[in-house]
């Protein structure tokens, strides 16, 4: 990787100093140091989505080619959002700077940059709010913690609000529940209004809008890749599974992040899904139009989230499905749990989800009509509907990474653990302060998982990697499981940097390994094609 960070892991660790070197943060200072920021979005992708001020520019340019009325625009968007979101107005007003959030942010822990303390990140915006929207701020200025909105402030925003992965860890510890994610979302909407966008959000969003998925996979290529997976399952198990695409009248519409069918190690999770659905004889379908579970709109703006998410319900209605099953993804599930029904519902053309295998009615999804795959599978296992052979995962010593959004914006903590305990014999938890609601982000979520941002990603991922290192040394853990496509895309790089040798896998890859299928061959290899005899143990 050309943009690989040049710092060695030991050097990076030694370089972290939690004593702030600067005096304060009121004077905007920002240096776009290579490896610590994301490139801008290209004009053509902005244009495709009708976003304002399309042009080609880069953060390291002196001139950001802002529109002449940029300041009025930013402030008017701020005012609009203050009136639309109680969270935003409240979080601008009630912080007491107690510092409880300060060392909870993975970017702060990994960089020591005091502006990465969640409180200061929010203050970068709050100071401008005070200046233009509060009386004391107008009167007392800097003494009141208020400051003018200048181009330098805007540049600082761009740097630090694209150095937040919207993971919500700080909000767990805040005595008022102030959620920096909300603040970051609003800041990104304000910046978007004057054309400040990053590439790895706007390009996937544009792709998703056009082709139905972030990777821009057109329908025929989608069909090819699913067919290819079907062939691979046959090679591995001797069984030819069916994988219907765009099938009208199927009972269940299955939607998973596009990386599952186009990237590694996601691919093995896809094989796991296919095997499971075949073994159950599930009446389901894939969709090419709604071929993306993830939603990079969440990282961009409320409207973009809604535009991309609209495809899920629209496709379920067009195909005449009864309910939707969702694959392993992180932020997708924040959108499904906290936004989808509100923005694009009510889905009254669907039915309350009922598992056709166990008859379980998923009351918890009775309005949204969308069930998480681990809820679905945990229910199967609990009803003894699967024959599992956990020995086929004995070569793995497993730990589990709670992804931010399923943990802190949904609360799905037990289902994945229940499944893992059923499909493997060696499962070890990382320390309590680093899992469940306390989990640490991969460091590359919310659109920041680009190569040019590599140093910051490795820094942000340090707390997660360090917890993995702990269980690796203690229990010999060699695989980090997770149920998030961004995790599966970025954790391998993080592991290579901090803990070489630790692999990354999805939950349903291990389900696939353990699943006994009727009429299978002797299953000489795991889903990765590694022969069982060959593994070192």
């Amino acid at each position, binding site marked *: 990787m050309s943009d690989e960070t040049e710092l060695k892991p030991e050097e990076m*660790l030694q370089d972290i100093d*939690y004593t*702030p070197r*600067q005096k*304060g*943060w009121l004077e905007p200072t920002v240096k776009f140091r290579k490896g610590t920021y994301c490139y801008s979005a290209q004009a053509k992708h902005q244009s495709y989505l009708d976003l304002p001020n399309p042009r080609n520019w880069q953060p390291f340019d002196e001139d950001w080619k802002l529109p002449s009325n940029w300041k009025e625009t930013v402030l008017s968007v701020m005012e609009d959002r*203050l009136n639309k*979101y*109680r969270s*935003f*107005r409240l979080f601008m*007003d*009630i912080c007491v700077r*107690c*510092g*409880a959030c*300060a060392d*909870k942010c993975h970017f702060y822990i990994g960089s020591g940059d*005091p502006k990465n303390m969640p409180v*200061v990140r929010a*203050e970068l915006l709050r100071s401008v709010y005070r200046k233009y929207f*509060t*009386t004391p701020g107008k009167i007392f200025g800097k003494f*009141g*913690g208020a400051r003018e909105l200048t181009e330098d402030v805007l540049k600082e925003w761009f740097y630090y609000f694209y150095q937040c992965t919207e993971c919500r860890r700080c909000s767990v*510890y805040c*005595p*008022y*529940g*102030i959620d920096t994610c909300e603040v970051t979302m609003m800041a990104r909407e304000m910046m978007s209004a004057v054309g400040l966008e990053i590439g790895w959000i706007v390009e996937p969003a544009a792709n998703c809008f*056009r082709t*139905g998925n972030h990777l821009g996979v057109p329908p*025929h290529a989608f069909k090819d890749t699913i067919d290819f997976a079907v062939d691979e399952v046959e090679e591995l198990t001797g069984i030819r599974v069916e994988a219907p695409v*765009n099938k009208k009248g199927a009972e269940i519409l299955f939607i998973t992040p596009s990386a599952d069918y186009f990237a590694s190690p996601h691919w093995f999770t896809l094989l796991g899904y296919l095997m499971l659905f075949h073994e159950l004889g599930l009446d389901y379908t894939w969709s*090419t*139009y709604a071929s993306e579970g993830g939603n990079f709109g969440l990282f961009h703006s*409320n409207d973009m989230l809604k*535009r991309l998410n609209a*495809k899920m319900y629209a496709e379920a209605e067009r195909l005449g499905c009864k309910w939707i099953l969702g694959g392993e993804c992180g932020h997708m599930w924040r959108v*499904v*749990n*906290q936004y989808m*029904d*509100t923005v694009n519902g009510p889905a009254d053309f669907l039915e309350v989800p009922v598992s056709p295998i166990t008859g379980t009615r*998923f009351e*918890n999804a009775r309005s949204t009509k*969308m069930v998480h795959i681990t*809820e679905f599978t945990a229910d199967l296992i609990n009803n003894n509907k699967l024959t599992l052979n956990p020995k086929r995962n004995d070569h793995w010593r497993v730990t589990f990474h709670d992804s931010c959004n399923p*943990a802190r*914006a*949904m*609360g*799905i*903590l*037990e*289902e994945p653990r229940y499944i893992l305990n059923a499909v493997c014999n060696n499962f070890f938890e990382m*320390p309590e302060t680093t899992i469940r*609601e306390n989990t640490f982000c991969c460091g590359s979520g919310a659109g920041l998982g680009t190569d040019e941002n590599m140093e910051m990603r490795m820094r942000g991922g340090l*707390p997660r990697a360090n917890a993995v*290192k702990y269980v690796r040394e203690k229990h010999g853990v060699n695989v980090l499981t997770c149920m998030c496509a961004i995790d599966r895309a970025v954790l391998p790089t993080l592991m290579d940097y901090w803990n070489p040798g630790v692999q990354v896998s999805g939950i349903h890859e291990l389900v696939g390994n353990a699943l006994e299928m009727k009429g299978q061959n002797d299953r000489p290899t795991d889903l990765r094609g590694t022969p069982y005899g060959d593994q070192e143990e």
Partner: protein
Amino acid sequence: MSIFFGVVIPYIAGFVFLGGILYRIWKWGKSPVPYRIPTTCGQEKTLPWIKSSYLDCPHNKLGVLGRMALEILAFRSLFRNTSVEIKQKTQRLVYSHNIALWLAALAFHWALLIILIRHLRYIMISDEGVPFLLEGLASLDGVFEWAVPTVYLSSIVVVLALGYLLFRRVSDPQMRFISLPSDYIPLLLLLSVIGSGFLMVFFWRVDLTQVKELAISIVTFQPITPAESLGWGFYLHLLLFCILLAYFPFSKLVHMAGVFLSPTRNLANNSRMERHINPWNHPVKVHTYEEYEDEFRDLMRAAELPLDKE
């Protein structure tokens, strides 16, 4: 002069406080809550055989009530606080449970509440009318009754706690970095109000019956001319308190009211069970299936994918 400090200033401060707080709450309340965004700090309610975390991830109003009560009465979230340290030798990050801030904050807020309740005796209409609860509280609180005048536990606690909160702001480089003048002002104001109260109790004794007469006349909106013997120790204490009151709505102290409205805490995690309504949910431009099929029809046909229009 005594009318100005004893009557006019308290009324101004009282109205600024009430008006200001109501205005802030009205302002917050005017902005809608478009989404159901609780921070889930435990297992959600899903399958019946999976135990859900009723208080940290509530799925109904009662659970939310419990969560808010824990938050407001016991500072639940602050109790989670940890501090991180890098052990360079073993290359490990170590997190330790750190309850100092929680303890100091909780001690400060509860002690302050007890002190405020204790001051209610000055506005109770008659001596016999001092409610039973207030008596009980005073006797519990006044454990150092052997001292004359009585030293209250809450007074000691509030000073120690405030002292700690100020100390950590000044001594910890991270705290110094994030602190604004508006973080020191409330601490210093509170300390000065309490300090002047001490001075009044121990040095510049005032006639409490006269204080009570004045206090009752003010809260019943029948202000009297304050008795002349009320010395400047009393007026100093009252003035500092009035400054604090008037400062309140314009400062971070509004967190007292705001915490009740925080959408990451006061909403149930039930948005898959019940649809949450966003009052401004506006239409957006979407890419329809028809447009999609129009663009990709030939490729889809070649791949033998079903089509809506042949």
